């Protein structure tokens, strides 16, 4: 299926909900959304990937790009993902050390608040 994007605010965190396939064709839309959110002053992002069916290196590049942008404002970008097949590509590329990857949106928010 194609990519569906949504986002909502929870406290000082913007939750981005991603559904479908993130690949070389659809990743530019996610990139535009992340840039738009940062440009509007949202520097704490949580990307919920529980409904992502496919993720490739282009999608990883967009997520790292988003991380770079929020860090430039002392912000954070955390991920919510429990799907083994999606987590695998983060492991292969070593990006599990770069992103905070959580089981739920609430866990992602709580862990950042505790820092």
């Amino acid at each position, binding site marked *: 299926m194609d990519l569906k994007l949504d986002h909502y605010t929870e406290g000082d965190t913007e939750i981005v909900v991603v559904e479908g*396939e993130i*690949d*070389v*064709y659809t*990743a*530019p839309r996610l*990139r535009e959304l992340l*840039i738009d959110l940062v440009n509007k002053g949202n520097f704490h992002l949580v990307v919920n990937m529980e409904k992502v069916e*496919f993720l*490739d*290196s*282009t*999608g*990883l*590049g*967009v997520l*790292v*790009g988003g991380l*770079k942008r929020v860090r430039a404002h002392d912000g954070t970008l955390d991920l919510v993902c429990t799907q083994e*097949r999606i987590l*695998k*590509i983060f492991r*292969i*590329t*070593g*990006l599990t050390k*770069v992103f905070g990857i959580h089981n739920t949106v609430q866990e992602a928010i709580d862990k950042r608040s505790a820092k």
Partner: protein
Amino acid sequence: MATITLTISALPAHVRTARLMAATVARRAGIAASAIDEIRLAVGEACSRAVAAHKVHCPAQPILLQLIDGSSPDTVPVSLPDAAGLVPHTDGTGAQRFEVIVSDRAPAQDTVESVGPAEPLLEGLFLDGEDTPPGGISGFSPGLGLAVITGLADEVKIDPSDRGTIVRMSWPLMSQPSHDPSAN
């Protein structure tokens, strides 16, 4: 060996088509269910890399994808129009393996690529925003794509040349191929 050949225009939208076809053919060939996701991802990475290279160097040229089921008794040779002489030939090692060959026609010497641990790739190789070269695809990093392919495929061989790059990937087939008619 049965071979299925797909030619795609160098457009990101067609990478998904290539992925779906690779997964379908792999399933039919009897690849273990756990490896189907790996094949889908590796083929997508190889095609994304090829599309990105073509967009810069030769956007009008097609990209060739070959899916070779080493278990099939079909031995009818596939004859392809090959103006550039680029159609790679299997080297006979494909028996009892599922092999995928992605061939592009972009000169390899102009494409800066590397395969290695992800850590060095994090600095500068993630193309994003203003880092994207003219005609490039935002967010795509060829080096990272090849690193993912290397991590996923059971065997990988990458042959770059001034006439294009050939990426060969293969996975072992299970002894009893699946003939489940619903396996589409």
